[in-house]
């Protein structure tokens, strides 16, 4: 498989695979409630074999929290990226394919969203609606769909001039059906190439929201763990550093894997 031939892609997918595995197996690896007390408070890492990463200030197992937190991070990252790509490609396809006044309106709305920093948008949305997992996902997507929308529109503008689109009109296909069945699937590859950047950004935004206490309160998140450790950063820095490293690794894995996908598809294009 060409995809795994580059070392960057290999490393990226290895990290992601390990993370996904850990996230999926979390309830089996740590069946106990990760929010329950597992030992003495503020046990430092590598002191107790049964609590390898130590405990936080309430005596909760840091490793269990980390593993359960991976579920939230990956889930929110992927769901937010998927949501923003869906919204973006639908908006971009409608704007590019139907053109005219609709194009103008949709692209000005896109501009408006793009001028507001995505994180502020997410912050405002969650503060108004209230924190829960779907709200956080949608709030992150709110700031991330403009990129896919622009790329999709540019791609659709070139595809709509192709003969097969004229052919679809010639057989009497409905314009919306042409847009979403003939045009959109052919416009998707460059939009999907954005997904790694979006997933990485979404993971970080989720962590930032949780850090500010706007994550889903019923779930352990890495951002929330960092925030909890912040108050005792001086004498227990590991409580913030450990989830921080997990975040860095996740974002790195997503980036490298995305890089590998883009490289592989570029190589395929050259050969074709």
């Amino acid at each position, binding site marked *: 498989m060409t995809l795994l031939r580059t070392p960057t892609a290999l490393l990226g997918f290895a990290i992601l695979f390990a993370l996904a595995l850990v996230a999926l197996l979390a309830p089996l690896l740590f069946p106990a409630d990760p929010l329950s007390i597992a030992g003495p408070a503020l046990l430092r890492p590598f002191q107790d074999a049964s609590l390898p990463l130590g405990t936080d200030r309430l005596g909760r197992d840091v490793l269990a929290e980390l593993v359960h937190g991976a579920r939230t991070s990956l889930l929110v990252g992927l769901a937010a990226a998927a949501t923003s790509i869906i919204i973006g490609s639908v908006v971009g396809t409608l704007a590019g394919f139907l053109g005219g006044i609709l194009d103008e309106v949709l692209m000005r709305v896109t501009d408006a969203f793009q001028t507001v920093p995505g994180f502020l948008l997410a912050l405002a949305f969650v503060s108004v609606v209230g924190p829960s997992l779907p709200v956080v996902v949608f709030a992150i997507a709110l700031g991330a769909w403009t990129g896919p929308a622009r790329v999709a529109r540019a791609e659709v503008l070139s595809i709509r001039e192709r003969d097969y689109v004229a*052919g679809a009109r010639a057989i009497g296909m409905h314009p919306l059906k042409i847009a979403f069945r003939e045009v959109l699937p052919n416009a998707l590859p460059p939009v999907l190439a954005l997904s790694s950047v979006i997933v990485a950004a979404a993971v970080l935004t989720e962590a930032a929201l949780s850090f500010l206490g706007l994550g889903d309160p019923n779930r352990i998140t890495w951002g929330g763990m960092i925030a909890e450790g912040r108050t005792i950063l001086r004498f227990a820095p590991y409580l913030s550093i450990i989830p921080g490293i997990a975040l860095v690794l996740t974002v790195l894995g997503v980036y490298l894997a995305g890089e590998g996908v883009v490289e592989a598809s570029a190589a395929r294009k050259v050969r074709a």
Partner: protein
Amino acid sequence: MPLLAVSGLTKRYRRGDTLVSAADDVSFTIEPAETLALVGPSGSGKSTIARLVTRLIEPDAGTILLEGTNLRALKPSALRAMRGRLQIVFQDPLAALNPRATVGRVIEDPLKIHTRFSRGERRSRVASLLERVRLDPALASRPIHEISGGQRQRVAIARALASSPTLIVLDEAVSALDVSVRAEILQLLKRIQRETRVAYFFITHDLGVVRAMADRVAVLDGGRIVETGLASEVVSNPQSEIGKALVAAAPRLPRS
């Protein structure tokens, strides 16, 4: 009543500060089961006229009557319904079909739009259409990007036939094919015309093809029709300058 009556068809494009006529007061008729060829040098507006007649681009003026219905006066939904009667096959078979679709889907789409067949009936229609264009019905499950240019043009013809049209516009439909495939497709088109009595509006720059396929021919130059007549007469004795130039430029092959 002619099958197709086009009159006063005009389309101008702005190129810089000047207006260029791609179609200038073009009028012609096509009778049922007839083949009218439209010839002209490249840039004379042939493809524009193909797209105007099939309502893929909007003319500046003129009427297009298909079986007495003015295609320019129809609402979008009525026009879509009417499109089943009037089909087009494009020049480049590699560009004319969605590369991601399967052969079966490409041919089934017009059936979904223009017939009330059940899924099973559509499947068997697709198979018989593939047989009609001399392709293996097993190709139906293959994606378009896996089959050859000649096969794709046969698929495009099968798709055009699916809605049982009365007129098919063939816009340089054999020009991009290599010589042996071209002859096969021309024979296929002739056989289909005998079987279904469909009329062809055959757009080409190749006079040899005109002589073999067309009943009548119209010669186009700079967006204007400068000569019309029986194909045999125009090809052997053209009256217009451009007609003479086209005949002089046509390669002559020794008869075998």
